[in-house]
């Protein structure tokens, strides 16, 4: 009886937090259907912002470009970050602490400063601007998040499992594929989700490093605040959230990355 009560309390807490997490998202979505361009209340229904958005090619191409860059960032940062985390976990070597500490500057120093530094540096060494430069920047900013997340998961990994598998004659590749990776899979998924979020919200780097005309959605949003953006932005954000929800639920339906044991 007492157990049930606690479990119920826990679930209520989780539900409450979900309400907190989704409150502004719901408001964002509601405002995309609100007639007032200034987000005025009371609410008055209108589909006009969606019509405007449909007619606005720029928003669409920017959103599509953002998704592509974020997807590429996720793949690269997750792959490189996971391998680095495994190395940091498995081996002891001189300079390991330094490598771990080096993950913090990109998180601690405001993106504006890092972005400016990248712009100057890329300009000097001739990488220049364009989508490759943007991708280089995004992956670099996402890497620390992936490494920290995957390392957190690895810290509860029992290294003797690897040793046991190896002693039974498994090659190190097999050990990695059959023992280590399945164990840290939830960490990799979480790291990938963070990487996507970092890239998808990254404005400064894209702003400095993309070619004129090749804007991304965050850049479009940030540069429009001075002169005022319209609920079109809410409309496109709502569509993105709904689409990602659909993709995520499909993923949850057909895979088992939550770490079920």
């Amino acid at each position: 009886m007492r157990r049930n009560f606690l479990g119920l309390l826990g679930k209520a807490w989780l539900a409450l937090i979900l309400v907190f997490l989704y409150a502004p998202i719901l408001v964002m979505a509601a405002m995309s259907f609100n007639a007032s361009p200034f987000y005025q209340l009371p609410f008055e229904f209108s589909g006009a912002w969606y019509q405007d958005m449909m007619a606005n090619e720029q928003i669409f191409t920017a959103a599509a470009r953002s998704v592509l860059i974020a997807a590429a960032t996720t793949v690269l940062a997750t792959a490189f970050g996971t391998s680095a985390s495994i190395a940091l976990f498995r081996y002891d070597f001189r300079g390991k602490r330094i490598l771990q500490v080096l993950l913090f500057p990109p998180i601690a120093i405001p993106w504006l400063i890092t972005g400016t530094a990248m712009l100057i540096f890329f300009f000097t060494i001739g990488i220049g601007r364009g989508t490759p430069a943007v991708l280089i920047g995004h992956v670099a900013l996402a890497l620390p998040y992936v490494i920290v997340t995957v390392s957190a998961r690895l810290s509860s990994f029992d290294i003797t499992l690897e040793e046991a598998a190896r002693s039974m004659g498994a090659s190190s590749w097999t050990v990695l594929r059959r023992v280590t990776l399945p164990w840290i899979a939830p960490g990799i998924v979480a790291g990938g989700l963070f990487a996507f979020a970092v890239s998808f919200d990254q404005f400064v780097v894209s702003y400095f490093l993309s070619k004129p005309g090749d804007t991304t959605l965050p850049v479009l949003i940030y540069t429009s605040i001075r002169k005022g953006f319209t609920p079109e932005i809410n409309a496109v954000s709502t569509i993105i959230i709904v689409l990602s929800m659909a993709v995520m639920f499909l993923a949850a339906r057909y895979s088992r990355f939550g770490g079920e044991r």
Partner: protein
Amino acid sequence: MAEALLPTERRRLVSLLSPAYLWLLVAVFLPLSAMLFFSFLTGLPQDDPDWGVTLANYGKFFQNPTYPALLWKSLKLGLWVTGFCILIGYPCALVLAKSIKGRAREALFLMVILPFWSNSLVRIFSWAIVLRGNGVLERTLNFLLPFDVRLNLMFTREAVVIGLVHSYLPYVILTSYLALQAIDDDLIDAARSMGASKLTILRRLLLPLSLPGLLAGAVLVFVPVVGSFMEPRILGGRLGTYYGTVIEDQFVAVYNWPLGAALSFILLAVVLLILALTSPVLKRART
């Protein structure tokens, strides 16, 4: 494991580490070293031919009481936000990892991170609509409650904390979840069969074993929050001046990269110092 590595292991180590760290080197460390160099200059080489080396930019931090005061204010903000994220997020992770099973858990896991994928600026403006006078929150409360409520939350320190907690909560939930979920349920059952109370299990078993995850989350919250400027500026209004905003001003309002860079590296140094000072304490707490 601490002995010298075999050549094959060394090769493997290098091949595992180098993609990530070479990438970081080119895209972050080298550019930031250039910024570090700028922070010791009197002017930028590209537009001041008589540039020289100086410590004056760092000196300004100590001469002008505004900077240390704001850094302190930002550190306190970081602590508040991190504290709330832990208090709110850890129980969530616990429920998610230990009392929800099957597909529902995977779906919820994803639902926690989904809000994170929306644009942060749009999210902050949505909070403004929720919190402002006669906004969504007040209207909802007045609709539900029989008496009149005036919260006046917008443009307060509370509003900044709410906005930041919302932005960073998923880090704590997910990293704690990853660590908690890794704890074998048999271990908990064994403890329970030996008569351990729920509180004891949490304090002696779950908390220590999941501490690395919780800490990773806390660090991912604390570190960026100390340098944040967008949320404080929009939600804090008159009270929204923090250390991050004065750094931003050196790049946006005036063209003073050396000072802006110096202020950023002081921030970095202080943050690293705090992490270094707290990590032994926390390590001891773990064992």
